[in-house]
C-alpha cells in the first residue's frame, strides 16, 4: 500500500478530509491527527448527530461469531483499553460485561456451542448455570435456564466519545467544521483531490467517507457504489432507577441470530442495561423501512414485552422516552474500510451497522495506519470497498 496522504504533498490544504463527525469519523480523525496528518472534519449537521447518538454505546464481542467482524471487535477492544485507556473516564467507559441468557435447555446448549467456538477465537466466555443467574442479576426472571457471561463486553457514552475524540484531535491540530455539507469531489482525472462543500472547496491529499448511514450517497458523489442501507432500531428509556438495578448488559440468546439476519421485517430481541444516570435502556429492534422516523407501536410494544419477560420487575417501571436510529447496514453485514481503487484518493470507513461505537476505535487506528503508508495491524481485505457488485437491488431512497 502506498502512502496515500503525507505531510509532504500539499503546502495548502489538508492531508485528510474526513466526511462525517460521527464516532467513526471522530476516531479516524483522532488517530490520523495523532499520526501527524493535517485533518479537517466536515459535518453537514452537528457532531454525533446521526447514528452515533442513537444507540446504547456497546463495545461487544459476545454477539459475534468467528470472522472478520469478530477480529475487528477484538482488535478494537485492545485499542479502547490500551491506546485510549487514559481517556476512558471521559466517556464513561465501563467494562460491565455482557450476560446472554437462554430461556430453555436447548437454547442453553446452543449458547454453550457458540461459547466454545468463540473461545477458540480469543473471546472470554464463562458458562453460567441456572442457579448462578441471580448472582449476576438479582432481578432476572427465575424461569430462565442459563446464561453465558462475556467479561470483555463494555459500554461507553457514545456522544461523549465523539465530542472528546474530536476535542483531542483539535488539540493535535485538526479542524472540525460543522454545518458544512459535502456537495461533490475535486477530481484530477479519476483521482479524488478534495471535496466541494457548502463552505467552499477543500483540497486534500485524501478524503475519508465516514458518513455512516448516509455514506452511500457520499460515495455516489464520487461515482462509486457503496451499498449502505438504513436498518431502523428503537430504544426505550426508563425512569431513573437505583444504582446497579441491572448490572450488566443483559440480552437474550436470540439477539445473535437477529443481528446476523438480513430480513427486512421487524425483529426484536431484548437487550436490557443500566446507565450511569440510572435510566435503563431497552433495545433492540431491527427493521428495514428506509428513513421512516415515526414511532412504531409494534416495535416499542415488543421491546417492552420482551424486557419484562427477562426482568418481571420492569412491568411497573415507566418509560420516559424512546428514540430511534438508522444503523448503517451493508448486505454482508461487514463494514467498508480502506482505499477505494475505483477513485484513488477516496477512502471509506462506514457501514458498521449496529456495532459502530465498539468498532470505531479499531477502525480509526487501522485507517490511520494505512493512510500513512504503514501495514495495518489487521488485514483490511475483508472490508474492501469494491467487494460489492456494481449494481444491485438494494438501493433505497436516501433522503437527507
Amino acid at each position, binding site marked *: 500500500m502506498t502512502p496515500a496522504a503525507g505531510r509532504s504533498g500539499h503546502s495548502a490544504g489538508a492531508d485528510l478530509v474526513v466526511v462525517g463527525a460521527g464516532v467513526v469519523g471522530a476516531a479516524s480523525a483522532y488517530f490520523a491527527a495523532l499520526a501527524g496528518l493535517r485533518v479537517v472534519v466536515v459535518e453537514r449537521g452537528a457532531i454525533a448527530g446521526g447514528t452515533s447518538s442513537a444507540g446504547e454505546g456497546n463495545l461487544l464481542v459476545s454477539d459475534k461469531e468467528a470472522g472478520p467482524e469478530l477480529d475487528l471487535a477484538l482488535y478494537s477492544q485492545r485499542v479502547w483499553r490500551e491506546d485510549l485507556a487514559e481517556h476512558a473516564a471521559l466517556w464513561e467507559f465501563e467494562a460491565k460485561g455482557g450476560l446472554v441468557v437462554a430461556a430453555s435447555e436447548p437454547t442453553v446448549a446452543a449458547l454453550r456451542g457458540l461459547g466454545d467456538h468463540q473461545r477458540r477465537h480469543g473471546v472470554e466466555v464463562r458458562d453460567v448455570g441456572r442457579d448462578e443467574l441471580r448472582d449476576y442479576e438479582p432481578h432476572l426472571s427465575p424461569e430462565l435456564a442459563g446464561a453465558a457471561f462475556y467479561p470483555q463486553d463494555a459500554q461507553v457514552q457514545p*456522544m461523549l466519545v465523539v465530542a472528546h475524540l474530536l476535542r483531542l484531535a483539535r488539540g493535535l491540530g485538526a479542524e472540525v467544521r460543522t454545518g458544512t455539507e459535502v456537495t461533490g469531489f475535486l477530481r484530477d482525472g479519476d483521482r479524488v483531490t478534495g471535496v466541494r462543500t457548502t463552505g467552499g472547496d477543500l483540497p486534500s491529499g485524501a478524503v475519508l467517507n465516514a458518513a455512516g448511514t448516509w455514506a452511500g450517497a457520499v460515495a455516489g458523489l464520487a461515482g462509486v457504489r457503496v451499498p449502505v442501507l438504513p436498518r431502523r432500531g428503537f430504544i426505550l428509556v426508563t425512569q431513573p432507577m437505583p444504582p446497579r438495578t441491572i448490572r450488566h448488559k443483559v440480552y437474550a440468546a436470540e439477539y445473535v441470530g437477529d443481528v446476523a439476519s438480513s430480513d427486512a421485517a421487524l425483529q426484536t430481541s431484548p437487550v436490557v442495561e443500566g446507565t450511569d444516570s440510572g435510566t435503563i435502556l*431497552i433495545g433492540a429492534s431491527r427493521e428495514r423501512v428506509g428513513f421512516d422516523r415515526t414511532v412504531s*407501536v409494534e416495535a416499542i410494544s415488543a421491546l417492552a414485552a420482551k424486557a419484562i419477560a427477562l426482568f418481571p420487575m420492569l412491568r*411497573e417501571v*415507566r*418509560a420516559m422516552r424512546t*428514540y430511534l436510529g438508522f444503523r448503517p447496514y451493508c448486505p454482508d453485514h461487514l463494514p467498508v474500510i480502506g482505499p477505494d481503487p475505483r477513485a484513488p484518493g477516496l477512502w471509506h470507513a462506514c457501514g458498521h451497522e449496529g456495532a459502530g461505537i465498539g468498532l470505531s476505535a479499531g477502525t480509526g487506528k487501522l485507517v490511520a495506519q494505512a493512510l500513512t503508508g504503514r501495514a495495518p495491524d489487521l488485514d483490511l481485505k475483508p472490508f474492501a470497498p469494491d467487494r460489492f457488485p456494481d449494481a444491485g437491488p438494494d438501493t433505497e431512497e436516501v433522503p437527507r
Partner: protein
Amino acid sequence: MAQTHDVAVVGAGPAGLAAAVEAAEAGLQVALVDGAAQPGGQYWRHYDERHARPDDRAGHHGWPVFAGLRERLRAARAAGRIRYLPGRQVYLVTRDESGTFTLRTTPSGAGETPETTSASGAGESSKTFATSSASGGSAPDAAGEITARALILCTGGYDRQLPVPGWDLPGVMTAGGVQALLKGHRVLAGRRAVVAGTGPFLLPVATGLARAGASVEAVAEANGTLGWLRDPVGAASVPGKAVEAAQYAALMARHRIPYRTRTVVTRILGQDRVEAVRISRVDRDGRPAGPVKEIAADLVALGWGFTPSLELALMLGADTRKDVDGSLVVAVDGFQRSSVEGVYVAGEATGVGGAVLATQEGRLSALALARSLGRPAVPGLMGRLRAAIGRGRRFAAAMHRTYPVPGAWTEWLEERTLVCRCEEVSYGDLRRAHDELGAHDPRTLKMLARPGMGWCQGRVCGFATAGIAACLNRRETTAEDLRPLSSRSLAAPVTLGELAALDRSHLSPDQ
C-alpha cells in the same frame, strides 16, 4: 375496536371545552380526553366540585363562560354526543394509512374520583356515560385507546421558567403552581410571598395570595409597566382587557402590594429553604443596573410567561414557528388547521393568548371541521370568530412585546446555578459542553451535558437551555433551537406493562 369518533379533542380547558361542545352541537361524535379530573384546564382550575364552596370561583375570570360550557358539555354527554375521558393523559398519537388517528392514554393520577375508578377498564357503560356530575367520565377502551378521524389539539401550556441562583430551594415555585394550589386545593403555599417575573399573570397570582391571607412583599416585574395600555394596537384590540387591568390595579392597591417595575429577583437566599430574595433594578435588557435590596420571604412565585405543550402536534409532524414571546408554537391557518391533514390546534399551543382567545379558537376549529364534513354552518359566525381571533392575536402580540423575557437574563446565572434540576446540570456544565466539546446547538448540548434528559424531559429547562445555547453562540434563539427541546417521543411517562399490552402480535405462541 370500539367506535371511531368524528373527532377527538385533547384537553378540556377553555379551547378544548369550546371545541368539544361546538363540535358535538354541530352533530359530530366527539371524544374529549383530559388529564385533570374535572373540566376547566389550568385557567378554570377549581376545587373538587363534589365539595364546592361558593368562594371557589373568587378571582376566576369568565366563570359564567365556564359554567355555560360545562352545562353544554353535560347536555352533549347526556345526548350521547361527547364521550368525556378525564384523568387520562395521551402519551402517543399515531395516524394510519386511512387517516384515522389513534390516541394511547395512561391514567394521569388526577382522575381517581369514585365515578371514574369504578368504571375504569369496564369499557363504555351507559351508567358512566349518563352520569350527572361533570367530573365523572367515561372509561376508554381496555387498552386506553381512542380512535378518531380528526383531532383538535387543545393542549394548553405551562409556566415558563428561567433559572436563577437559589431557584431550586424549597419555597420557590412557579407562579402557576402557586395559583394551582390555591384554586385547585385551597392551599396557601407560604405566608410572606414575593411574586416575580414578567407579564400580567403576576397580578392575579399576587392578589390571589393576598386574598387568601398571605403578605405579598413585592411583585417584581422585569419590564416597564402597563405599556400595552398605551399601545394603540393592543389596547384598542380588546377593550375588555383594560377593564381587567384596572380591576387588578385596584386589588393591588387594596392589599397594599408593592409593584416594582424593571426589577428582577437575581438571587434567592436560604439554607434549607427560602429565607429571602435579592432584587435588583435592571435596564431594558435585564442587566442589573440599580440598587440591590433584600426582602425576607418564605415563598417565591416565579413566572416568565408560558410554554405551550406541543408534544402531540410535533409527534404528528406539524409545522411550528417561533412566536413573538419566543416560544415555539404550532403554525395554523385561518381555520386553526395545522400542516397535518385532519389535525386542528387551538389555544395556547398556537400562541399564548389567554382564555378568551383560546375559547374562540376552540369554537372556530370545531366549526371549520364540521363544515369540512359537510355540516351546515351558521351564516357569518365563522367570519365573526375569525375577526375576533385576529384582534385577540394582535392584542396578545402587543402584550408579548411589552413583557419580553429580558435578553440578558443569562447574566444572572452563576457557574453552579442548576439549569436542569432533574439531571442536576449546572450553567457551568453547559458552558463547558459548549466551549470544550463543541456543543453549539441545544440538541448537542442535551446529548453531551444531559439537560432535559430526566423526569420532566425538558419541560422545565427546555426554554432556558435553548436560550443559553443561543446566548453562548451570540445569537437569538430560533425555532430550530426550540424544536428538539419541545418534542418528546412519549408525551407522558407510561409503564412498560402498558406498552407491552399495546400490541400482542409480537408474542410467539409459547410466550
